């Protein structure tokens, strides 16, 4: 889809329906000091072996409740680097949501999203308005729109880009 706003995206759904999917599953302690390439190979490697070979840039990740609970390790950065276009979950852990914003991974809470999609469906996500549309099934849902202040950080490409622009790095 030719839309330049990173907060309005359309893509193929991966369904991670369990509650409390944690950061350690995205970024195990054993890869902390490893290269980005190695870290990317370990995303969900024990939780969902083989997924890393199938995920493609532009895909959308759909999660359950308290998605991303755990530590400050930047699992959202790894999802972003894998090309995940958006995260939509029943609820998102507070620390994880901050890391999504800071690494410019569009993210939105949407109650009922798990029942709105099957894996492989095409989902349209508009985080500026807080809406989702399952284009495969023709069904719509409502999420929590991202506040303007946070949208600006995501549109700027995340914190790192801002700090560079402002001459801190």
């Amino acid at each position: 889809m030719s839309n330049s706003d990173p907060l309005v995206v359309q893509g193929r759904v991966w369904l991670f329906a369990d509650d409390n999917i944690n950061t350690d599953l995205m970024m195990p302690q054993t890869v902390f000091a490893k290269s980005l390439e190695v870290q990317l190979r370990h995303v969900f490697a024990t939780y969902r072996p083989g997924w890393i070979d199938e995920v493609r840039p532009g895909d959308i990740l759909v999660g359950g409740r308290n998605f991303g609970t755990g530590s400050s390790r930047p699992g959202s950065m790894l999802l972003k680097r894998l090309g995940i276009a958006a995260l939509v979950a029943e609820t998102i852990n507070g620390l994880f949501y901050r890391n999504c914003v800071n690494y410019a991974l569009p993210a939105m809470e949407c109650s009922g999203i798990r029942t709105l999609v099957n894996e492989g469906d095409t989902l349209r996500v508009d985080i500026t308005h807080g809406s989702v549309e399952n284009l495969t099934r023709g069904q719509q849902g409502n999420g929590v729109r991202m506040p303007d202040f946070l949208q600006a950080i995501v549109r700027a490409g995340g914190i790192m880009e801002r700090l560079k622009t402002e001459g801190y790095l």
Partner: protein
Amino acid sequence: MGMTMAEKILSRHSGNGRVRPGDIVVCDVDKIIQIDLTFSATAPMPKRIVDPGKIAVILDHAVPAPTIADAEGQSIARKFVKDFGIDKFYDLGRGGICHQVVLENGLALPGQILTCTDSHTCASGAFNCVARGMGPLEMLQIMCTGKTWYQVAPTVRFELSGRKPPNVFGKDVFLHLADIAGSVEGHNIEFGGPGVAELTLDDRATLATMAAELSAEFATFPADNKVAEYLRSVTQEQFDPAESDADAEYAATYPVDLSQLRPYVARPDFIPHNTLPVTELGEDVPIDQAFVGSCANGKLEDFRVAAQVVRGRKIAPRVRFIVTPSSQRVLKEAVRLGYVETLLEAGAMVTNSTCGACYGGHMGVVGPNEVCITSSTRNFKGRMGSPSARIYMASSATVAASAVAGRICDPTAYLGDEV
């Protein structure tokens, strides 16, 4: 309507008047805590920082360095401290786990805002400080600009009353709260009520620290006389506590009668709604490793209780009992008071202060299919080592008693009359 403690602190630091859940506020941060893991050969370093006086650097997770990469990161941290003239630097042997060092040295003060990359940063809420974990990139931003944003969250309040029985500790109280409230993601936790006065500062720190396991945003206690008296003994810095208003609004309030509690245990993999009284576990669980340590429970109180339990006894055959202090100061006191000798006589292994085994980093990583009981912070699958290991969680008393028994057990019979 009035405001909660967290709402008041965010309101004062943002220059806003009344703040409400849902508001986004940009706040000046008072204390910026950097740990060893944020320094590495690849991590970006700032050209300029907001104020070296606001920053403390504490090396805690991988100390002494178990790998070359860790050693390199710590060298970079030392260079950072020197280049930017940071006085509050806690190198190996002079500090400990960041949250304990922060509390011991009065770096977190009532009414302040503190940030750190570690997810258990809410620990400083024990001293009425609004504190939470942030990603490493956000910490870089705060070091540069001195500011960050918060979305004001609704608050869940635990109204404490009564006095704990002698076989019940801060960890047991927490595991009970995890049973009744479950996960509170997207919410702050506030502790209040007459029961707070009955809790030691160590117990309050355990509760505030463990709030991270319920996915709380902030966890705050009121700053009573016990807090103020302690802080006056360690810092000259002035502070202005935030009390919650009588008409503050809460998303939920849970009354907790401390006198009714019993020793608790959490089953493996997750804590919310996964805990129960240890006598009701309903299965015989032989253990391979027992661990006392972490920012939550490597405190002097934990050493005292663990020593009490194992005094004159031996750790069970084929079980290893690892005890890791949360700070150098705790270790020195535990040596002076004879707790370390008692533990060593029983066959426990006492390590230097570090996050160590709690995050599966080093000094107590568990192997495939092993069973561990721990008084540390987190029991996710794979947290302390192999993903096939099973991690139970309980108070340091229950952990020590289980180390002696060789299986998970209630600590009451081991505590004697002295506790």
